[in-house]
């Protein structure tokens, strides 16, 4: 007695599995991406990060900061008291990839822009335990010794313009002038400068981590 699966038809197995496993993505990701494309300028919250902050964000990615720090504040009073108003879609519209994170070994960083001075970030990065007693964060003293040459920043900005044009029509893009001047803004600065610029954000013109603590007040 044989089971009823079509006998030698491996092709059927391949086609049916491939079709079925794509349904979930088609139902969840595609409509969401479509509505994301329809976001208004007001929802997108401002400008993309400038040259130095792009480099800073790439240092954040390289060092794996997202393995311990999240950037997604959930709509609970306990979270908003501690971190600021809940994160919205526009906060991360310029991020490729997303930096939401999945674990808080350290606190959420979505709205720390402007909450700590540059000195604090310097001290904290070079030796976390000097300002946060009992912290388990590793020290990052090598960042202050690496001087950037800015060779890649222009191509990064151009790549981002390409990405924004496909994935976020209402996002602002980088002007040609900004791209030309970008290497000058980055060259000679250290990676620590870049990362701190990213963390500190730009409180008046949000981009990266520069969002005010509360969006609503």
């Amino acid at each position, binding site marked *: 007695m044989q089971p009823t699966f079509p006998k030698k038809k491996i092709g059927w197995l391949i086609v049916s599995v491939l079709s079925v496993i794509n349904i979930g993505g088609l139902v969840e990701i595609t409509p969401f991406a479509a509505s994301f494309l329809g976001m208004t300028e007001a929802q997108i919250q401002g400008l993309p990060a400038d040259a130095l902050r792009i480099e800073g964000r790439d240092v954040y990615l390289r060092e794996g900061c997202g393995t311990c720090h999240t950037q997604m504040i959930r709509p609970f009073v306990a979270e*908003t008291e501690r971190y600021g108003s809940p994160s919205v879609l526009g906060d991360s519209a310029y991020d490729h990839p997303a930096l939401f994170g999945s674990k808080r070994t350290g606190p959420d960083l979505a709205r720390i822009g402007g909450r700590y*001075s540059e000195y604090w970030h310097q001290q904290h990065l070079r030796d976390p335990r000097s300002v946060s007693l009992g912290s388990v964060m590793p020290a990052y003293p090598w960042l202050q010794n690496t001087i950037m040459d800015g060779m890649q920043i222009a191509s990064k900005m151009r790549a981002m313009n390409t990405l924004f044009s496909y994935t976020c029509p209402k996002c602002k893009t980088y002007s040609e002038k900004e791209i030309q001047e970008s290497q000058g803004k980055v060259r000679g600065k250290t990676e620590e400068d870049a990362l701190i610029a990213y963390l500190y954000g730009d409180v008046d013109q949000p981009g990266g981590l520069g969002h005010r603590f509360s969006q609503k007040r």
Partner: protein
Amino acid sequence: MTEFWSVWIIVLTLGTLLICAALIGWDVKQMEEEIANGQRSPDDFYDWGEVTAYDRPIPYGWLYSFYLCVFFALGYFFFYPALGRLPGVLHWTSEGQYAQESTKHQAQYAESLNRYAQMSVPEIALNPEARHIGHQVFLLYCQNCHQAGGLGTLHYPNLTDQDWLWGGSPEKIEETISQGRTGVMPAWGALLGDRGVEEVTEYVVALSGRFPTDPKKVGAGRAKFEEYCSFCHAMNGAGDTMLGVPNLTDDIWLHIDLETIANVSLLETHLKRIISKGLNNLMPAHWEMVDGVKIRLLAGYVYSLSD
């Protein structure tokens, strides 16, 4: 979300659920029929050599549990937003839930805080319960910089002494906490040149009551100080609490870690760097993070630290 995508989601979601449930149910039914017809028996046995398998019927408990879950899923979709634009019967949203939680939280705790709303900062400083609450606010929002007990460290003032950059009156303390402060000193390296920076450094060391390593430069340093630095630091170096400019005649150095300085020449190295490159210190404004009563309580606590 457009109507198209909404329908897309509804059709594919319900379709997937129902097809999944139906496929399995059909399979079970088919097997039942085949057993009834004698086409197969529950003891059928397949052999692939290394492994073998019975083809027993699917346990009904398993199948009905799955149906129960499908029923739960459909119920959830009925009440909550899941199917495209359909909001669900309860019209629940996460924003709505948060707004409710916020309001409830405010209402629940407003009373316990409002009894302090009429107290002044000095009154709070004298009241143990009020101080305790202020201390709790301090732990949550201030300790990362000002450290435990408000003792401060490099770049963050000691709140327990009498030295106040922006004034130590209750009103000033409350203002500082609420509005934040910036501590900006321009970079003088380009204007003064290396020699000029050294001269001014020696004068500043002398001002603070220590002995400079090269006293010959003090005179020239004084001249430059009076020409450039006195605008902010005042002629006698006493500073200006309206602008947050420090008093240079005391031996309190906010931006130099005195524990690491064994001698004056190390102090001078740090001073030269500061004069040359400037400073950009920040205390963030807290009016967004901490609402009115809590700021008052915090100010009361801070005020009590320096008593």
